[in-house]
Each structure stands twice: as C-alpha cells, then as structure tokens.
C-alpha cells in the first residue's frame, strides 16, 4: 500500500468515526467507551505479526507480552462491555420471587 493510500484511508476513517458516534445518549457513554476500547485491542494483530516473524530472543519475549496484552484488551474489553450492556437488556418476565430487590 502506498503512503498516500494509507493516508486516504486514515482521513476517511476519522470522518467515519465522528459521524458514526456523534449522537450517543449519555446512558451509553460508558459502554461505548468500553467497546471502542476493546476495538483498539486490534493492536494484537501487530503483536501476532511481530511474534509470528520474530527470529531472536528478545523479539520472542516482546512479541509474546504484546500478544498477551492485546488479548487482555480484546477479551476483557468485549466481555466487560457485554456485562454492562446486559444491564440494559429487557428482563424476559418479572420473576415470581424477584431476587433483584435485595433491600430486605
């Protein structure tokens, strides 16, 4: 890919990012931040490529840590977001003995 092609992609992606999320209710700010946080876990691909083509000791170490960091970012990020958003899911039916009201 030529540098100019990459810069074109970059600039378009900036605008897509602005357009796609410019109208978010406050309610969803935290989950959305968490989801975008998980998406930048994409850096793990960089770690995989570095490690996959590594051929000296220090690169093995750096690459393995980078992959582990990236995996934490991805797996943890999406799972935590899912948990947060689970709070917004419509409960199927009010349970007969609603254990949610734990005020006692």
């Amino acid at each position, binding site marked *: *890919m030529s540098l100019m092609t990459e810069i074109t992609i970059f600039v378009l992606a900036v605008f897509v990012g602005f357009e796609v999320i410019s109208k*978010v209710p406050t309610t969803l700010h935290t989950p959305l931040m968490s989801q975008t*946080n998980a998406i*930048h876990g994409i*850096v793990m*691909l960089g770690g995989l490529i570095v490690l996959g083509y590594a051929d000296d000791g220090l690169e093995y170490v750096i690459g393995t840590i980078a992959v582990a960091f*990236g995996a*934490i970012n991805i*797996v943890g990020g999406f799972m935590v977001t899912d948990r947060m958003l689970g709070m917004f899911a419509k409960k199927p039916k009010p349970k007969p003995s609603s254990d949610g009201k734990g*005020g006692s």
Partner: protein
Amino acid sequence: MVRAVLEPGGDAATALYIVAFSLFIIGIKQGTHPTTAKRGNLIAAGGMAIAVVTTLLLDGMGNWGLIFLGLGIGTAVGVIASIRVQMTEMPQMVALYNGVGGGAVALIAWSEIRHGISLGEDFPLDELIPVIFAGVVGSVSFWGSNIAFAKLQDLIPTRPIAAPGQQVMNAVLLIAIVAICVILAVDHESPSQGLFILLLVLAAILGNLVVLPIGGADMPVVISLLNAFTGLSAAAAGFALDNVALIVAGTLVGSSGTILTLEMATAMNRSVSNILFSGFGGAPAGGGAGGGEERPHVSIGAQDAAIKLAYADSVVIVPGYGLAVAQAQHAIKEVADELQKRGVTVNYAIHPVAGRMPGHMNVLLAEADVPYEQLKEMEEINPELPRTDVAVVVGANDVTNPAAKNDPDSPIAGMPIIEVDEAQQVIVIKRSLSPGFAGIDNDLFYEPNTSMLFADAKQAAADIAAEIQNL
C-alpha cells in the same frame, strides 16, 4: 499440518480485514442505541475474531508455541478479570484494558525498530515516523492508564499529587521527547535503538507525571482521552506494518474517543488542556470558609426523612458514586416504589459526570429496573428543582456543590451542577461530612434547608423504605 495460507497484504487477507473493520463500524453504530447496543458489541467482537483468524493464517507465520502462550495468558486474564469485576469497578477496568492496549503498541514499536535496524538498511521515513509516534503515545497511554487505574482503585491517593515545578518538568520532558524524535528521524539510515528505548522511558515518565496531578471528577475525561490516544497509536502501528485493519480500527477509536472526551469536558465546563495542565490546584483543599473547624449542620434519622418524603408531592433523587459503592440502587428503587404507591412523583437527576464515568448512574439504576423515563438529565431537571419538595442526594457530592456557581474562587467554579439547593428541602444521605472526590468541602451540607442523614446509603434507603411503609 494442513493450513490455508494467506499472502500478507494480498487480496484475500485484505478482503477479510475489510469485512472485519466494516463489522467494527456497524458495531459502534449499533452501540449508540440502547436497543441494539448489546448486539452491536457482539458484531464488533465477531469482526475482531475474523481479523485475528485472518492474521493467524498469514503465510510465513511461525513461533506457534509462543503465539498460543500469549493468546492463552491474555485470554485467561481477560476472562477472569471481567467476570470478577464489580459494576462499581468498571471505570478502573476500562483504564486497565486501555493501558495494556497502549503497552502492546509500545512493545510492537520497539520490536519494529529492532527489526528495521537488524536489516541494516535505510529505515524508510514513512515507517520510522509512525513507529516513533506509536512508541511514544503507546508508552504514555500505558503508564497514564495505570496511574488512572491505581487512583480509581485507591491504590494511590485520589487527591491531586503535585510536585513544585511540575509544569516546567513536563515541558522539559516534552521538549526532550520531541528532540529525540527529530534526531531519530534525521538519522533514519541507522536509528539508534538506545535512543528509542530512552524515548519510551521518557514517555513513560511523562505519562505518570501528567496523570498523577489530576484528581477528582476529571479522571473520566483522562481515561477517555487515553482511550483515544491508544486508538491513534494503534493506527500508527498500522501505518508501520502496512495493515489496513489496524489503521481503520485504530483511527475509528481515535476519533470516537476524541468526541467522547470533548463531550465530557464540556459537561464539566472545562477545557481538556485546563484539565491536563492545571489539575485541581489543591489550594483551598481543606475547606472553604470554615477551615478546620466544624460548621453547623442539621442531622436527621431515617424516620424524619421518611416523613419528609412521604408527604411531599414531588421528590428528586440525585445519585452519586456513594450509591454505587454502597450498591444501594435496589434499596433506593424500593424507596421510590413506596413513594409512588402514595402518589408522590419521583424522578432521578443524573449529572453527566456523576459517579466515575458518564452513564455510570444510568447503568446502576437500569440494573435495579428503574424506568428509563424517570432518569432526567441535568438540563431537564434543574428548572424543575425550585418546584420540587424534597431533593434526596444519595452519595453524590461535588456535582451538587453550590460553590460551583456561587464562589468564583472555588476549584470547581463554573462546573454545571444539579441545583438541589433550589429545592424546598434537601436530604443528603452520606456517611460523613468528608469532602468528595475533588477534595473540597460542600457548602450544600450547611444550608438551612439541608438535612444530613449520616449512614451507609443502602442501609439508610432500606430504613427509609421501611419507615414509609409504617406511616
């Protein structure tokens, strides 16, 4: 081993990456609506799975043992941490995940520099510059996020920590970093690895120094900003590695994170540069007028509070971080239910930065099945407050402090607040008179129409609900 192999940068791999980042865009889009957000997150996760598998299938990849070791450790840590984390600790978790992402970028950049140098050829500038950028920003983000995590987890004091001459020190560091970047770029025929490592270390120190002095309600803005930074550094790594998925996904996060950061800063009537470079000066920290001595206040019990509430026509509940800590959302919902049975109108006033993140209170109250229509945003509820009989402040502090509009010398002067002092009566449920996250005293507690109910929020709410039933 039979394995489909994709040519790096070839059509098949690129096509799969395009599918992946399209799913990210759809996922983020759906994340902006309550009904589709959960599905959106799953779609984005699906895109990530495609991107990861595609990369694993690239031709010439090796070191499978180490790859699966890294994947295994990271996945295990991620799964365990996200299952164990409490809802109240979500902000720290986002900070931590953001940090490791930044750390990964910095490590990749270091590895790329080593690799480039070992080839012994001229390092092309269009690779070297993104690598330097990724290293610096990734390192700042890693250390800054760790400090944010430590502050929110109370591992280090949450109050602003400032050393004398800190601004000067930051400026010197920044100049040194820029200078080293220039030296590395000018010397692109054989950039020095030692200088690059020095760059990572200086960026790490800068990340620590920039976040350490920031206290109080500003932390969410900082996490959001670091999130955007990590996105941009991932995009830079994409430039260096010629990887379109990294460029698009990283940039998306960079631009969306920037919007979120600006929205949060606007909600607090502060500029991002103001937050980053001044902190809450810490000057009037110990208290406003009263200094060390105790100022007069009215203290009441659960029964009095129940009576005030039960005979009101309209009640506004103002939740804050204390509600989250005490896990009081269900108990508060019970109080609201009891009041509504008696015909009292109940609404919840949500300050944009109540809790530790925007939306923090909404998440907790949604968990307790509070109807969405009862959650009112600050602009909507403030005009209602003079007509409100009782405002109940549950574990909120700085976001109700009238000093923000009355005292131009207050560190939070100008921050929009929920104007509970306008209500006919105010009940503040709080464990003590101690100052909030911003470390400043709250004049509201000493207003003549304010009653303090000193108790754990959950216990107090349960007691009040029981007392209302008895009336």
